[in-house]
């Protein structure tokens, strides 16, 4: 039983000690993604069915005959977590209505990495959100295809080196910025959209709780530090998450019925990107001119977000 289900917000002392994603899985040391997953599961509680895409979280948790999942769990393929979750939601709804299962609300959630969300899974995600399923989708974004060996995705940040966007002599890593999938979700009129990071655990869990309580589609994009893929120290996961947020390169915000709101206060002068970049091997090749370009893109994206924060109004 989730002891905090009657509380609207999480507080450290009230967090359930029980793990619905149990220890003993095969994640790398310092994995920010599995930390996010653990907190998400705590916030979701046991009346949850998880549809998981192929990816790191799937392979570290379900090597047959073992499983780390204490809740009902299904993995089908890479690009279809949202479609499988749609089916789970429809199945549970029909069976409950027809009296074939217990008359109790069970939340269908889908969990995928950035590849399974923003690239190969985008169509299934768009379809599920557009159809208005009562489905909470969590994108655990570690900014590349880490499971297959650190290849770039459309969530890889500008100029980051990956194995398919290498730091070449002519081309300095990833040539584009991150695809803004939260914005695409808002464009689907998804009633609850948020960004989160496990370096801010209470903020993350509160957003998960809101997504869970949304009767309809919800989307949470979770920044998940990957020390292995980012060529960073495994003891700096939390710090890197904080820096991504503080620099504004991954701002924390939520969008409730179209109204954008920052969930963290930013000072007039945000932390410079250089502080964040220099801790990661994937940005080691950047020269001062590159860092200026990266900073300029982060500033532009932040301005776009602030414009939405300042001008958006709830549509209901």
């Amino acid at each position, binding site marked *: 039983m989730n002891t905090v289900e009657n509380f609207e917000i999480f507080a450290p002392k009230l967090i359930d000690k029980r793990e619905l994603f149990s220890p003993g899985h095969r994640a790398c040391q310092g994995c920010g993604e599995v930390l996010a997953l653990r907190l998400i599961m705590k916030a979701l509680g046991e009346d949850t069915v998880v549809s998981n895409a192929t990816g790191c979280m799937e392979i570290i948790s379900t090597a047959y005959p073992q499983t780390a999942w204490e809740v009902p769990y299904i993995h089908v393929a890479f690009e279809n977590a949202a479609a499988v979750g749609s089916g789970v939601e429809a199945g549970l709804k029909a069976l409950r209505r027809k009296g*074939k299962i217990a008359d109790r609300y069970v939340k269908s959630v889908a969990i995928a990495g950035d590849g399974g969300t923003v690239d190969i899974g985008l169509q299934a995600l768009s379809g599920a959100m557009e159809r208005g399923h009562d489905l909470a989708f969590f994108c655990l974004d570690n900014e590349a295809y880490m499971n297959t060996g650190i290849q770039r995705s459309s969530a890889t940040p500008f100029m980051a080196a990956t194995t398919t966007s290498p730091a070449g002599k002519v081309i300095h890593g990833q040539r584009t910025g991150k695809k803004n999938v939260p914005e695409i979700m808002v464009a689907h009129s998804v009633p609850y959209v948020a960004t989160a990071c496990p370096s801010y655990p209470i903020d993350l869990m509160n957003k998960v709780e809101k997504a869970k309580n949304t009767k309809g589609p919800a989307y949470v994009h979770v920044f998940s530090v990957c020390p292995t893929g980012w060529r960073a120290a495994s003891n700096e996961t939390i710090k890197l998450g904080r820096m991504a947020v503080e620099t504004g390169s991954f701002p924390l915000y939520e969008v409730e019925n179209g109204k954008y709101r920052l969930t963290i206060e930013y000072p007039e002068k945000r932390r410079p990107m250089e502080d964040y970049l220099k801790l990661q091997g994937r940005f080691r090749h950047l020269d001062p001119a590159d860092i200026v370009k990266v900073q300029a893109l982060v500033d532009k994206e932040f301005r776009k977000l602030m414009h939405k924060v300042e001008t958006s109004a709830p549509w209901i």
Partner: protein
Amino acid sequence: MGKRIGMEVGIAAAEAVGLCNIDVAAVYPITPQSHIAEHLSDIVHDGRIDAEFITVESEHSSISACAGASATGARVYTATSSQGLMYMHEVLPIVSAMRLPVVMGNANRAIAGPLNIWNDHSDIMNQRDCGWIVMHAENGQEVIDMTIQSFKIAEHADVMLPTVLNMDGFQLTHMIEPLEFPTQEEVNAFLPDRVPYATLHPDKPVSMGCFNMPEIFTETMKVKDTALINSKKTIIKIWNEWGKQFGRYYKPVESYKSKGAETLILTMGSMGETASVAVDELKKVGKSVGLVKMRLWRPFPLDELRAAIKGCKTLIVMDRAVTFGGIGGPVATEIKSLIYHDKDRPRIVNYLMGLGGRDVTVEDFIVMVERAAKKKDETYEFYGVRE
């Protein structure tokens, strides 16, 4: 049994699904399956059945949603055709490996390229090794009957495998035929509620779709193969139950005037009806010709087929698909393997015909039979091709 009515077969397929108390349908429209999708949505939207109809954005998502819904314990249905089936392809072997009893209707259509919306069997033949039960209907009545049977077969505790019922696109799906529907009470008496082995529910959490290391993967493949082979026994049992209740008996392989015939034609799907007329015509002029029709493609009905073709001198296999760069059409290739060790095996003549909606008439069958008698070798021929 209700009275006989005239109805388009695609619509009848949807009506048959409507009798089966499904919980979820996830269907993406594609020609020539679209009337099934449309009519099933009518049935749901008019409140005639209590089910969720998911208007998915693709076939990949329709089969994926079916997997998710089936895993909750729901009875699920989908229908597709051609490119749609090809798009589902990735998920098909996963559904069978997870032993999810999804029922599918497939309106057979050629696969591109080039694009062609008309009938052949290339769509289903490309799914041959996906581990599904694959059946072919010959006429509208079979579509109704076999759709209802499919749920009982798929969900049976000794089977727990997905099924696909093939119905030839246009040539069958768009025909208006005299059809008899069982009543709801009769279907209820035949088709019990699904009793799933395991479901996605917090009352008893399970993990489904765990990945296999090399140490266990081979065993999993053998289990899947064994399950499919073993399903034949239950399929036949359920077909006999249907026969007893409704008076229409179904067999994995059907024979028509084949006893003692020197030459046998072998077909799958709707062309069996045309071929049977050709057999009648040929018999009139004293030819020793009969017909064998395969209803069950997977699991392959080894014993039944061997018995059905025993004693014939020439077996003419009609393939409605091409195995490019191979040794003949898929059906002929498999039958050649089957009888390889048989002492008195017949000579096999293989025609690739009826591709992409090309009509195959009674006269065509007669020509093919006559030409087969003169053929010396066992290579395949594209029948009717304009050189």
